[in-house]
């Protein structure tokens, strides 16, 4: 077997994992992506998996800086425009509220 084919065979599983990961990220539900960002960057929580979609993010510790960073993440990740004038508790209070707000937001052309 040539060295080239051997290298390709060794790297195939890694490629498959990377491809699968990319695909997963591409099709990962919005709320999961938001949740992953929130609990890795903005709020410490002992058990993020247990945090419900209607649980209060503001009570959990999401502060003003966190809200801005979350909005910037959502705009970049989902290609939308979230106007500053719409930054209010109703739109950021929970994962469900966030998802609704993002889905209704205009696309960033």
């Amino acid at each position, binding site marked *: 077997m040539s060295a080239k084919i051997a290298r390709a065979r060794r790297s195939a599983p890694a490629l498959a994992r990377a491809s699968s990961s990319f695909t997963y990220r591409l099709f990962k539900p919005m709320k999961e992506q938001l949740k992953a960002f929130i609990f890795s960057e903005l*709020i*410490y929580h002992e058990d993020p998996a247990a945090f419900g979609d209607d649980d209060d993010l503001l009570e959990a*510790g999401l502060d*003003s*800086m966190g809200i801005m960073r979350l909005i910037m993440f959502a705009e970049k990740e989902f290609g939308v425009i979230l106007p500053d004038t719409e930054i*209010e*508790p109703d739109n950021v209070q929970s994962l469900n509220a966030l998802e609704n707000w993002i889905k209704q937001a205009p696309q960033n052309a």
Partner: protein
Amino acid sequence: MSRFAPIFFNPADYFTYVLDQEIRAAGMPGGYCGFALHLSAEPDRDRLQQRLDLLVERFPIASARIERLGKRHAWQPTGQSIPLELHRCESAGDDDTEAQGILLRIFNRPETRALTLHWIARASGGILLLNWNHPLLDARGAKILLDFLGSERPDSFKESASLIEAKLAQWSPWRKFWLLMKAKRHNNQANSLDSCLPTLAEQGPQTLALQVRRYDTEQSRRIAKLAQQHTGMAGRTLYYLGCLMRAMESLGPPAAKAGYCIPYAFNLRRQNAPTPVFGNHVGCLFAQATREKVRDRKALFEHLLAQHIRVVRDELDFAYLPLMWLGQWLPPAKYAKFLRKQHSGGELSSLWFSDVGDLAWAKNGFLGVPVTDMSMMCWMTLPPGLALLVGQVNGSLTLSYNYLSPAVDKVWLDALMAKMDNELLESETE
């Protein structure tokens, strides 16, 4: 790695060290800060001393001195224990005044240790004072440290690496350079509006004085509601800053110039994260407005909110991090000049400010003793000679006005506090 291996400053540690050196050069003890927790009873002092011993064992940096190693500075652990220092109010009468006097006596004395802990016993309960040198840790870290000392599970506390360095490592050299240029432009802009100051004095022997204003839960709720109305989701900090600018303007600042500039910090830790404990993990933002803007209450809050949102959207908050990284390589005096001096030669900061937010304690308080109140202290450079430290405990807002005396006139400060009351509560305003 040896427990006594040196721990190098991160960029924000060095930033605070530079200001510490400025304070010392002016004849004051240095960049020390204090949290004073009012407890309803005396905690178990033996248990507290054991916790201090555990602190030094688990986090050797807690008992360290600053050393210069090559071009950099580092904390060199000494292994020395930190004794709980005991003080007692003697008067049978008003021991509030006496307790504060003891607090200030501790804070004003020359200090060589980076961290000390004091119990000031009163007729009933007392005050636990944590006094620390700012290059060692930031205010959030001080809270985590107090949580460690008072926790039922101190073993659950772990240390982690510098968040500033972690953030810098995420960026390519080009991105860091781009952000650096943005920060430099932003800094230049901030320096072009001369800042009003609370004193004309720039030198002379000073002592640190303290005035504390506490709001009851009803007043605190009203202030929070007004903050929500005026500065919305940007948080209460901008509301406090705007009210303070207006209070100074309506009274007339002793050093009257073109506008107001108040730096405020943002924390890189995740909210509620129990780590990192030590080190400074903060960046810097500026709230700035012309005197004309300050006179119009509605326009001021709109301006401060828009300014804050623009700064975050333009990544000017993160842009400060590469600037701090670069600053590490400057000698303290040169770096301090860059941080403090405006184009006109005046001081950039109208005053120092910090908002630690709502401080929550475990259900059983601190080592089983309820926390009833708090105040906060810090030294600052002259100018500005005034720092406002804000926090909330048990739903009650506390404003700790720290000022250098005689540089800041007490009569002027008393009037400022009254104006600030009116602004915060929106009473007697235009």
